[in-house]
């Protein structure tokens, strides 16, 4: 029996997952004490799972690769899973690094090292799919490092600027 605390957006549920039993892909699950049967296709390749049945209710979803969010019925939910046995929490990125949200080309850089920035201030402009995308600071701080130059192509999640 695996005991977890699952937070969906702002609400936390206490969940117990039993070992797979009987038919392949079927798990008996207790959510806040309420028994539910969950069917998972492709239980052997969890990264590829994109639908499940809970009791008699089928759902299609997309889990983010980092398991920090899930999309279901046109909505995206932030999720956090806390393992009550190991007390492990999935990490949350809270550092001041601004990463590339999409691959693209650095069109312009609007800040200099040691410059103070406000939350929401445009730090640089990333060009992708023929659109100029303004990349803004998530919080106020001081620009410590700029890792890129104008004209440079960047890959997804590449660190662009560090703000302290």
């Amino acid at each position, binding site marked *: 029996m*695996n005991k*977890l605390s*699952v937070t*969906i*957006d702002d*609400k936390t*549920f206490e*969940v117990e*997952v039993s070992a797979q039993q009987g038919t392949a892909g079927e*798990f008996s*699950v207790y*959510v*806040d004490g*309420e028994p*539910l049967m*969950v069917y*998972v296709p492709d*239980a052997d390749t*969890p*990264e*590829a*799972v*994109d639908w*499940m049945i*809970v*009791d008699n*209710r089928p*759902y*299609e*979803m*997309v*889990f983010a*690769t980092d*398991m920090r969010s*899930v*999309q*279901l*019925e*046109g*909505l*995206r*939910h932030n*999720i956090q*899973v806390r*393992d009550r046995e190991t007390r492990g929490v999935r990490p949350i990125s809270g550092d001041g690094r601004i990463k590339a*949200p*999409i*691959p*693209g080309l650095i069109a312009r850089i609007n800040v200099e090292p040691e410059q103070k920035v406000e939350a929401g201030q445009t730090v640089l402009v990333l060009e*992708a*799919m*023929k*659109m*100029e*995308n303004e990349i803004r600071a998530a919080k106020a701080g001081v620009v410590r490092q700029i890792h890129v130059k104008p004209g440079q192509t960047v890959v*997804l999640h590449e660190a662009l600027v560090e703000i302290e």
Partner: protein
Amino acid sequence: MFKKILIANRGEIAVRIIRTCREMGIATVALYTVADRDSLHVRLADEAMQLHSAERYGAADEVLAVARQLGVDAIHPGYGFLAEEADFAERCAQAGITFVGPSPAVIRSLRNKVEAMDVVKRAGYRVPLYAELPEGELDEAYLAQRAEEVGYPLVVKSARGGRGRGARVVITPERLAEAVATARREAEMIYGDDHLYLERVIAPSHYVVVQILADAHGNMVHLGEREGSLLRHNQKLIEESPAPSLQDEQRQALWRMALDIAHLFHYQNTGAVEFLVDSAGNFHFTEVKARIQIEHAVSEMVSDVDIVREQIRIAAGEALGRSQADIHLSGWAMQCRVNAEDAWNDYLPSPGLISRFRLPQGPDVRVDTYGYVGCEIPLRFDPLLANLIVKADTRDACVQRMRRALQEFRVVGVQTNLPLHMQILHDEKFAAGDYDTRFMTNFRFETKCRDEEVRQDLAAMVAVAYTLRRRIGKSQTPERIQTGWHRSARRLPV
């Protein structure tokens, strides 16, 4: 009729054109770039040639060289790229290749939006207030004065224009200089021409266009109007036909006006005459789109006319062979533009590899797309991935059909705006047909799930997914063998 047509375009429009060519027994030549080699149009064409120059699909020299080399008799430009390029159309003619579109002279007279408005204004039709800006660096005082003549709020537009790119709305004078600079940069980047003009914003308003077909023998018909008032960042998201904002008498007047204006330009081939409708119901002419449009399928659904087929027939010199009385507009059609972009992340483009792709099916549902499972959505190009079009007898039934089609449509691997479309289709005002160009400004993208049972089920599913992943994560492989091996390397390439 032509034996072989080269399609100087990519994406869903290239696929769309290939389909009609095949039905007409015309061989097709597709073009592609390295980034685009996986797209469906390459697979479906009879021949496919790679483009090497930096201008990609806009490379006139290279496209003409391929056309000559493979002996095509016509070039279909689709929209964007070489469509509405008079010089290119002229060079095609010189090379003895038919350009599927209006003549170079007609393209030229419509290409400059300011000159086209001059012509229409002189003929006595309403146009919005506008002022042309000279090229090059502008004196701020001069700019301010021109803007004052037009009045605020105004929109800075590219004279070359099209697809809403490079346009910037300016509400107060302080923002004018910056908006002009940005619009100039974007216009230069997208159209290779930084010629701008200022146009007075008519708000609230409705965007309506009338679809026109005109042959070389003096016959001209319309296929009704489309409404495209649902825009986000100047890009249309949803189009429909007929326009829910118009009464039948207005509709008749609009069609007549569109045909008259098309005649002013001696228009030929297919095109769309575009108007803004103000709150008093006045039509203001804005431009003629001298090409096929992304949303043409909406008109095809209500008129039962294959617009691409007509384009090709007209280009080949054939007569329309039908009068206005032969065209019966029936039912209601609607299109959602499915873009590879992330509604939760400021609508940033979302390129990547499509790992799952399930198209909606069933009665009166059509999807034009270049995507399929395993196809790479390239970073280089426009985020438009698919056009989803549905038809029904009434608008209500059409909205219901679109909702269910959106629910069936599933794309995994790249983020799409399908959730946004779903929420718009469930908006009360939209469902009632009561919306104008301000709709998206006031629209709030819902992110909270209020259904407690769904949340409980979701908690169960998240727990199972987590348990399974952790089990796989705790690999049977000894630690020492895993050393130096990056975990994420196991994942599908993103």
